[in-house]
């Protein structure tokens, strides 16, 4: 190994023009590949598509439609919606939607939609007419409409809010219509109909995707901000141009290569992959910092020869940088096995980036340094000057050197970890706030979701799929009675259930109309034949597809829609548990099967399950692999324990804090933990390697001296490495996409916490364990 490093470090400088030329050509090639890069949000990336619940959801969409369903709510600020202006708006928006290319007219639902009817029954028969065929003009017409709305259970509270302050319009676009087009159409509607007395709120999956697409390009300005912030950190660390520009240049090259490979393999820039360039840039800079720090250190002590310095630092830092990058790569590697598209694509993009950092840091930085004139004496003195950082690091080193204080540090750390376990017991999987966890509560999308959810309780639907063995299975009294029983059970047993809706309600309503509108006849008819006749009657009165959202055209499949008041994990678990319970105890018919869980609730349940499982599994997987790499690199089991134990405890502490802060565990926690553990180990590796170098160079047993030296040199570099990495990642906190901001805040904090943890705890552990592998010259 040492021979290879010797050969590599000398070859790198001897053929420096060749290496530089290769870097330039490859960079130009990858820059050319960037033309394939485009922004595209795919909401499927946020869900585990192979999860049984997602499979149910896909079947529901395949049979009943609703892939591109959107909701438009019109809120009136003064008085109520029953005035000519507001009703006119509802009518016009509905008509505009009918006229929109790509809309499915059978799925437009509002008080003026053709499929929303008013039914009046008497002894002679029943009268069915459009609820609002034309917008009413006179006070009398408006009064009649209001009365009809109030008595219609399929409209009151569903299409008109119970406080009369808002109306809801639902529409569904064909799958061929692009999300951007849908978003644009809806924004135009909002612009056209919003005025001083009316607010328009728009929600639905295509709208969310549209917002995410709209926010994505804003990340470019955030990237510039990141570069500026990191430049400041670097300037503070080195106070020189080369100290700032070289890490940035090498990181820029790694980022370019990473993006180029990503583009070459056909990946798009999504809300998750857009984070990769930031991360690669920050990580690339942080590794380069170690090289620059070691360069100045060399220059302060030896004959100031840039080539010799480049060879020396390559020789000293090859192993820690290589192991560091290897353990950095473990995070993305393990993330590739997480069944969530957003995590997988992020893993791929970061993986490519880390591969590129190897070239950017290990090859480009020493290469460029070898071309540079030696720094002026003043520049070296400035860099090596004792600063506040040095004093703090020296204090940490003293804590480790003193026997009493190092035990205090270790015990303190264990006590904190125990407290963290208490915090962890409070952790809850899933997001608790209304709306999507991808965006801020104040975002226009979440404001719309919140409004629609509050007024109409439709934002969090949960679907149960009723699958018949053969066609016409649903036209069976016993099947409808089972569906009815399940609906009533969920309404009674689950507090968070608002209401349920299925073909059962339509059958009961028709039966009531057939029997003179008598309330007691709101029940399922006894005869299958009557059910078939009612269904047929419905099919005669509507356009083809009008009933597709409720029952399939061949009457083989139906669904039960359950509206939940919130999507807290407890509510989701409860409704799914009760469904399972009912099916187990009450479902007897062989003609149909009940499958759950579809809709938004099913998708969230699937994500929650994956997050719960994967957080544990992935943490163990990453820790195991990092441990294995460390043992392999240093040739010692103790090295693995020495570096991994503090890391595991630091991870516990972070989760403990999240538990005490009552932050719900969401999907982005998985990459946070995997990357945090992978990256967090770098700091320890650089310090341990430096201690080992010092012991080898001095050829003695002065562990204290080696540790103090390592802390004042590599410790300082670790501090600035961690700081620049944290700052680079924490910049995501300014993203308009909450998922990114949350990941930035958590990962940034986790990494900085790792830096501090490493600088305080690791020296104490080294002094306590006094491991033999540090003196072993064969090991890395």
């Amino acid at each position, binding site marked *: 190994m040492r021979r290879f490093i010797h050969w590599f470090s000398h070859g790198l400088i001897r053929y420096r023009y060749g290496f530089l030329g290769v870097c330039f050509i490859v960079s130009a090639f990858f820059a050319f590949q960037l033309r394939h890069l485009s922004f595209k949000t795919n909401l499927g990336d946020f869900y585990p598509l192979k999860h049984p619940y997602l499979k149910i959801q896909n079947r529901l969409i395949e049979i009943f439609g609703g892939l591109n369903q959107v909701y438009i709510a019109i809120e009136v600020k003064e008085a109520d919606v029953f005035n000519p202006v507001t009703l006119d708006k509802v009518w016009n928006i509905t*008509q505009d939607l*009918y*006229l929109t*290319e790509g*809309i*499915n*007219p*059978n799925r437009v639902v509002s008080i003026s939609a*053709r499929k929303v009817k008013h039914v009046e029954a008497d002894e*002679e*028969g*029943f*009268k*069915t*007419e*459009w609820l609002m*065929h034309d917008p009413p003009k006179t006070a009398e017409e408006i009064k009649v409409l209001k009365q009809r709305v109030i008595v219609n259970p399929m409209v009151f509270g569903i299409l008109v809010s119970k406080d009369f302050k808002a109306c809801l319009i639902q529409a569904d676009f064909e799958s061929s219509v692009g999300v951007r087009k849908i978003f644009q159409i809806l924004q135009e509607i909002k612009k056209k109909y919003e005025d001083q007395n009316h607010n328009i709120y728009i929600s639905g999956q295509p709208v969310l995707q549209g917002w995410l697409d709209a926010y994505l390009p804003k990340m470019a300005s955030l990237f510039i901000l990141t570069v500026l912030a990191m430049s400041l950190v670097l300037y503070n660390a080195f106070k020189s141009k080369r100290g700032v520009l070289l890490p940035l240049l090498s990181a820029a090259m790694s980022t370019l290569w990473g993006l180029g490979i990503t583009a070459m393999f056909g990946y798009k820039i999504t809300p998750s992959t857009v984070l990769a360039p930031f991360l690669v840039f920050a990580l690339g800079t942080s590794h380069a910092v170690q090289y620059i720090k070691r360069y100045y250190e060399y220059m302060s002590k030896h004959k100031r020869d840039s080539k010799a310095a480049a060879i020396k630092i390559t020789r000293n830092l090859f192993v820690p940088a290589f192991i560091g990058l290897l353990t950095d790569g473990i995070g993305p590697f393990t993330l590739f096995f997480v069944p969530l598209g957003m995590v997988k694509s992020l893993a791929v993009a970061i993986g490519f980036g880390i591969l590129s950092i190897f070239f950017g840091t290990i090859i480009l930085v020493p290469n460029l340094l070898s071309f540079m004139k030696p720094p002026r004496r003043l520049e070296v003195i400035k860099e090596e000057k004792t600063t506040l950082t040095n004093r703090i690091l020296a204090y940490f080193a003293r804590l480790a050197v003193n026997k009493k204080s190092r035990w205090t540090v270790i015990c303190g750390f264990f006590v904190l970890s125990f407290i963290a376990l208490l915090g962890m017991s409070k952790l809850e999987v899933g997001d608790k706030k209304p709306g999507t966890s991808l965006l801020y509560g104040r975002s226009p999308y979440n404001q719309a979701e919140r409004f629609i959810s509050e007024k109409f309780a439709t934002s969090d639907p949960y679907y149960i799929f009723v699958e018949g063995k053969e066609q*016409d299975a649903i*036209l069976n009294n016993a099947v409808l009675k089972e569906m009815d029983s399940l609906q009533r059970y969920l309404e009674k047993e689950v507090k968070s259930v608002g209401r349920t809706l299925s073909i059962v309600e339509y059958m009961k309503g028709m039966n009531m109309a*057939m029997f003179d509108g008598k309330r007691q006849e709101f029940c399922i*008819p006894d*005869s299958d*034949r*009557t059910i*078939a*006749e009612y269904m*047929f*009657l419905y*099919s*005669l*009165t*509507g*356009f*083809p*597809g*009008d009933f597709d959202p409720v029952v399939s*055209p*061949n009457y083989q499949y139906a669904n039960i829609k359950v509206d939940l008041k919130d999507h807290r994990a407890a509510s989701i678990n409860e409704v799914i548990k009760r469904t399972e319970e009912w099916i187990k105890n009450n479902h007897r018919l062989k003609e149909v099967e009940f499958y759950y869980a579809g809709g938004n609730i099913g998708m969230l349940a699937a994500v929650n399950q994956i997050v719960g499982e994967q957080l544990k599994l992935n943490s163990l997987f990453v820790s195991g692999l990092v441990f294995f790499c460390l043992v392999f690199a240093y040739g010692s089991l103790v090295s693995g324990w020495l570096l991994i134990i503090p890391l595991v405890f630091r991870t516990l502490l972070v989760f403990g804090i999240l538990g005490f802060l009552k932050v719900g565990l969401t999907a982005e926690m998985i990459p946070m933990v995997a990357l945090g553990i992978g990256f967090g180990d770098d700091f320890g590796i650089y310090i341990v390697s430096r201690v080992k170098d010092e012991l080898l160079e001095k050829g003695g047993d002065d562990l204290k001296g080696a540790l103090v030296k390592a802390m004042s040199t590599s410790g300082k570099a670790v501090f600035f490495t961690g700081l620049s990495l944290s700052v680079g990642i924490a910049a995501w906190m300014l993203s308009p996409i909450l998922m990114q901001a949350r990941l930035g805040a958590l990962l940034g904090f986790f990494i900085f916490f790792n830096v501090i943890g490493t600088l305080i705890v690791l020296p104490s552990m080294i002094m306590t364990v006094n491991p033999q592998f540090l003196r072993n010259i064969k090991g890395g």
Partner: protein
Amino acid sequence: MKKAVLFLSILLFLSSYALATELEYFKVYRPHDGMSADQIMEIEYHIKYTKFAKDASFGGKAYFVDKSGFVREKETFRKRITLGRKSDDIAYKDLVIFISPQVKGMGTLTWTYMDAKRQPDSWIWLPSLKRIRKISSANSDDSFLGADFTVEDILLRRFEDETYTLLRTENFGGYLCEFDKKTYYQGRPCFVIECKPKRSPWYYAKRILWVDKNTGAGIYEEKYDATGRKFMTLFKNFEIFNVDGKAYPVQTIIEGKDLRTGHRTTIINTDIKLDQGLSEEEFTQRTLMMSRW
């Protein structure tokens, strides 16, 4: 001179109006070159509602095909008696009995009135409940029996509901029927008429109708929405039935396609019988309830 032109114009307008409104029941009319759009359309409506025949009966099978290719069928038996009676305002009475297995015997009875403003009366019979209920007539822009075309396409649209412009005469390009994959009316000379609804806004902004020059039957139409987008096509095949020396053009195929949803409805009329001397007694609520299938 100006007054004379004005007088002649008014005379011409009135005569065309008279022709348009005075087509007699139970007679067969044919269009010819030189007729105005209104005159042609009056004949088209006369044929559409089989006003030439005293009665008609036919079996019908409707196929509802969604864009995935899934087919739903409905089978009916229909009969109509044309009365054109001013004394009690009844234009015609329709009886439709559904004979698909699950809903066999279910039926509807509809009385349509001469007065265009008067809503038809309809009743429905549900054999499983043995109940007859009066039902409100559907809106003109509602679906006709769950098909892609509207009620007014088949039953309710009247001559007075639209304004007409003769765009051109041309040989029809032919219609490829999706049901039997045959091309109909290729090269048939047609009047091409633009029909605009008087009601505005309405679910369509205009129809372009191809009227067969030989028979006066509207064989094909395209509907356009307010944005100018074609959203629906409706094809009708007519066959000539000779009854007592009179040649009656009767619809045998109706095929409507909703271009927005990709859904299609095809109705095939079979066993067509005309002027068989049906009695008005066969078009009462009692006979509806007594229907046995």
